[in-house]
């Protein structure tokens, strides 16, 4: 089943594992009135990586750099999936697996339209993934 898919920019930030570091980062965004549209936090033993979708990635990276954070923007896919059991399988997981593509990570957005969910998907070969998802 084909799903509306688009390429977007996400912002990732390298964070040391220490209490308060996430707060400091979130404060930077708050101070600039930047809302977070989607977010995930991946953890390794000593550090974490925050990945977020912001309204304006370039501005987000700039603001974080100014505040001394290690941040950069990378391309990911945004996919709208039906908000029902099996929705993610049909629209994302199965098409990608059929195309022989690995999902690096996936996280959900907080602000979908009614009856819809929005997920952010990272696949190494974005072109191939986009094609696979468009075909369904």
């Amino acid at each position, binding site marked *: 089943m084909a799903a509306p898919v688009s390429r977007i920019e*996400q912002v*990732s930030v*390298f*964070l*040391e594992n220490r209490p308060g570091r996430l707060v400091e980062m979130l404060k930077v965004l708050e101070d600039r009135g930047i809302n977070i549209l989607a977010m995930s936090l*991946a953890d*390794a033993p*000593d*550090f974490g*990586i925050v*990945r977020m979708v912001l309204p304006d990635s370039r501005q987000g990276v700039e603001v974080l750099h100014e505040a*001394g*954070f*290690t941040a*950069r923007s*990378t391309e*990911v896919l945004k996919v709208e999936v039906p908000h029902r059991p099996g929705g993610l399988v049909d629209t994302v997981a199965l098409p990608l697996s059929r195309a022989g593509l690995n999902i*690096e*990570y996936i996280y959900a957005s907080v602000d979908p339209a009614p009856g819809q969910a929005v997920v952010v998907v*990272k696949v190494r070969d974005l072109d191939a993934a986009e094609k696979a998802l468009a075909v369904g």
Partner: protein
Amino acid sequence: MYWNKEAETMPREKLESVQLLRLQETVKRAYQNVAFYRDALDRRGIKPDDIRSLSDVSQLPFTTKQDFRDTYPFGLVAVPMNRVVRIHASSGTTGKPVTAYYTQKDLDVWAELMARVMTAGELRKGDIIQNAYGYGLFTGGLGAHDGAQLVGAAVVPSSVGNSRRQILLIQDLGVTALACTPSYALIIGETGRELGTDLAKTSKLRVGFFGAEPCSEPMRKEIEDCLGLKALDIYGLTEILGPGVAHECMNQRGLHLAEDNFLVEVIDPETGRSLPPGQKGELVLTTLNKEAMPVLRYRTRDIVSLYPDTCPCGRTFVRMTKITGRTDDMLIVRGVNVFPSQIEDALLRVDGLEPHYQIVVDRDSHLDELEVWVEVSEDIFTDEIAPLETLELKVRKELESVLGIWTRVRLVEPGTLERSEGKAKRVIDRRDLGKR
């Protein structure tokens, strides 16, 4: 209690005349038999006859660890090799080791110096001493062994490791003295506690001779508490002899330097000038009684100061403080010498790192932990964890191959570590902060 009362309590004046004779003899033999020293003295226009007083030692060139490496393996040997009866080597894991050579007379002197050390701890015939220094190339094992045997004590050559068996032997044999590194002494005590055995109560241990590693006062206290013995600090180094160069007496107030065998200087490490007693500086030692490998003005890189007063024990030899630091930031981690420069070299070989790092040494349940903090370069950072974990692994492998010990690597954000303007504080050593 003295092993050699005449030597150990020699009046200052007499001691100095003995020292001068031996210094002149040493310089002469070094000049005649070691090309390295002959060249060094010739370059300065000094002849052995120019040494007319003890203060003339300041005319002699320094010898450094690098000189040992440059002249490896036989360049500093002053006797025909067929007179050498033993060869030891330092514990360094990279590059060439420092080798030390001994004639039979050197071994006899060494045994006597260690016998003095142990007699100062009231070890005598009838005692049983467990020697848990590593036996082998390391000077600790055989050095302590020969001294204890000379005293007439029964030696249990347990070497290092297998703590349960160490405890079994200490208890079953009624061992009264222990010789090992301070960190291993703590491991023995800790293992005893884990086994439900309080060695302070159940063993006959009375005294311990601990060296080859820094040992802070709180750590000494912990050793004494868990083993129920008096812990004496001993000092030595392969380049000069091995253990036996300096040691504490029962007063535990400074380490007596065996001045009849070594000429002691404390210098300003920057200018090389002699410092008066009481001032902190680098310990410089000249051997006065060694045949196979005489050493002139060896820069130990150990920071100490000398006590200006005399000790109530009656020994006239000057005392130095415990080692309070190193001029080169050398760390001893789990018995292995670690230089920050080695770590820096290893980091430079890995792409994706900023040239900023911090070394943190801690002692976690008595074992030294080495942690290296490095800044991740923004170039290598993307949105994925895997590349960072790969980087971390690469750094760890590189460090392990250079240092020979396992280290923890911690990736930190760029810009968070102190920048090296002049002297950056590259090393944080938490072991001596009084936790133990």
